[in-house]
């Protein structure tokens, strides 16, 4: 016979745990319900169209999907090598006191509100990029958006990668060292492999933040719903347009289209998380075969 207290303990914690799937369910349900008018009106063409005209009640999502994906990819392209390099230094290379200060600063970077990043982006980063990059005329564009995102996700990627490296069992390092490996070889042979799944996790968390970031991006990306091959042209992201237009959207279709954009953002996030899970699962299998 089980302890009565334990039975209740199980029931209550089960209730708490099931609140997560329940919340996700009602979230998706409401998004679907509210975006139904737009889905019915525009059909699948909504995802592939390029027109966003609130006055004519014509809406489509492609420029926003494009802007979200490209700005996040720019952010990853910059933040992943930078963050990984920083994490490797902090975890494996440096023995000095200096690294403690860097670790604190990384956390400070994560604590800065995004509106402050946005301001800094308008007044400092944008004009500065214009000065150093030939061909860039204005500091408000896709590239600036990507760079500001890179700075914002850098702490996430650095901090998690560092934790992951440190979680690798110490005896792996010792074995490599015992075989005469240099620091670089030791990292390459003994640490990077087991840490791969964790690194992917760090990158995905960073990407998640980049995809959903709103305020800082909307302040520097130019908010123009147009697909342009140039990184120096203004662009627009899913999260930004929702934040910009939601409060003042008068027509029901406009509101519904904005909610469908939210649904698309959710689907993109779920897809990316799914792929990441798969990668993590595969690499875990490789290094920890059951």
């Amino acid at each position: 016979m089980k302890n009565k207290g334990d039975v209740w303990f199980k029931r209550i914690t089960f209730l708490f745990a099931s609140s997560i799937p329940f919340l996700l369910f009602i979230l998706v349900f409401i998004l679907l319900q509210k975006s139904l008018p737009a889905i019915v009106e525009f059909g699948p063409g909504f995802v592939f169209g390029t027109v966003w005209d609130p006055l004519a009640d014509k809406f489509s999502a492609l420029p926003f999907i494009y802007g979200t994906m490209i700005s996040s990819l720019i952010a990853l392209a910059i933040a992943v090598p930078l963050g990984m390099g920083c994490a490797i230094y902090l975890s494996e290379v440096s023995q000095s006191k200096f690294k403690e200060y860097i670790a604190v600063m990384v956390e400070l970077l994560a604590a800065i509100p995004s509106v402050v990043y946005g301001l800094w982006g308008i007044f400092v980063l944008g004009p500065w990029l214009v000065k150093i990059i030939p061909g860039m005329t204005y500091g408000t564009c896709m590239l600036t958006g990507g760079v500001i995102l890179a700075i914002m996700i850098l702490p996430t990627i650095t901090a998690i990668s560092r934790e992951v490296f440190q979680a690798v069992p110490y005896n792996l390092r010792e074995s490599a060292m015992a075989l005469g490996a240099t620091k670089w070889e030791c990292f390459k042979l003994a640490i990077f492999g087991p840490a791969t799944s964790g690194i992917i996790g760090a990158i995905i968390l960073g990407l998640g933040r980049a995809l959903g970031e709103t305020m800082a991006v909307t302040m520097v990306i130019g908010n123009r719903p147009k697909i342009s091959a140039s990184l120096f042209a203004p662009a627009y992201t899913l999260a930004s347009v929702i934040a910009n237009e939601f409060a003042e959207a008068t027509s029901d279709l406009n509101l519904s289209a904005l909610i469908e954009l939210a649904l698309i953002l959710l689907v993109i996030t779920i897809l990316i998380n799914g792929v990441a899970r798969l990668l993590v699962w595969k690499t875990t299998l490789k290094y920890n075969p059951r």
Partner: protein
Amino acid sequence: MIKKFLAVLMVSIFFCSTAFAIMINGAGATFPYPIYMKWNKVFSQQSGIKVNYQGIGSGGGQRQFIAGITDFGGSDAPMTDAQIQKAGGDVLHIPTVMGAVAVSYNLAGVSNLKLDGDAVVDIFMGKIKKWDDPSITVLNPGVSLPAKDILVVHRSDGSGTTSIFTTYLAKVSLKWASQVGKGKAVSWPAGIGGKGNFGVAGQIKANSGAIGYVELSYAIKNNLPVVSLKNKSGMFIKPSLDSTSAAASGAMQSKKLMKMVNAGDFRLNLTNAPGSGSYPIVGMTWLLVHKNMKGSSKGAALVKYIKWALSDGQKYAPELLYAPLPKSVRRKVLNVVDTIKL
């Protein structure tokens, strides 16, 4: 048991709500929020009637009013006839105060830029691309304008400021009216978007060669360089509270507007108004109320509030950088308020 409990609860809620003073609820535009707050405070001290206003945006204000969640709405953009029909045809637009939209720019060494309607339209259309374009230089004799690219900055968020600005552009240009149109958010043919007055002003400040539009009060508070615009009478006028009020008085000379006013319709387009002192980009903000408030316990209190706001309340407008309604307009509005059925 539960039924009994609910019954007791409902009775007690009923008594609570009648025991306290009347509370009028409204929500909507953020542009007039500061003055509505001031009015609500002073009015409740004088009359004991509490007015609660939430600045949730004109769109939300219209929706909540139509859905019957609020007693009145606030909006910077008038509802269309179709929207009014949807709301049961029973909507009155009461103008409260006026605002203007200033065109601001960033050009080192140019302190008093002059533009006319056509030039503003062509700049925001993306047709005029350089600052030394002949259609700009001809308006600014003696000023040396650089051969710099123009960067157009507009609002990225839906806004009453955009509504007033595009109403002006659509009024002075048929091309703008047919290709872009007017509203709180439009599909801009050129430029970049900044979030809020603050975002637009920031982009202008950060980018040499930029031009954009901000609310007049914002331009005054932050001492931004503003364009003198050519009005209907051919004068170049800087935006100010006086030139805003002058525009309303000037607009009243129009037969079309008077006809609307006499019919009790105050969705007036005040842009490009005649009169030598009128600034051309001017608009009103409205309270949305029902024409028929029979059976509503709050109707009388709401009418009292509106009447007070349009008389004593107006004196608080200038200090908060809103232009008060001219007396002639106020009289007409008060006449219409008297026709509200209680």
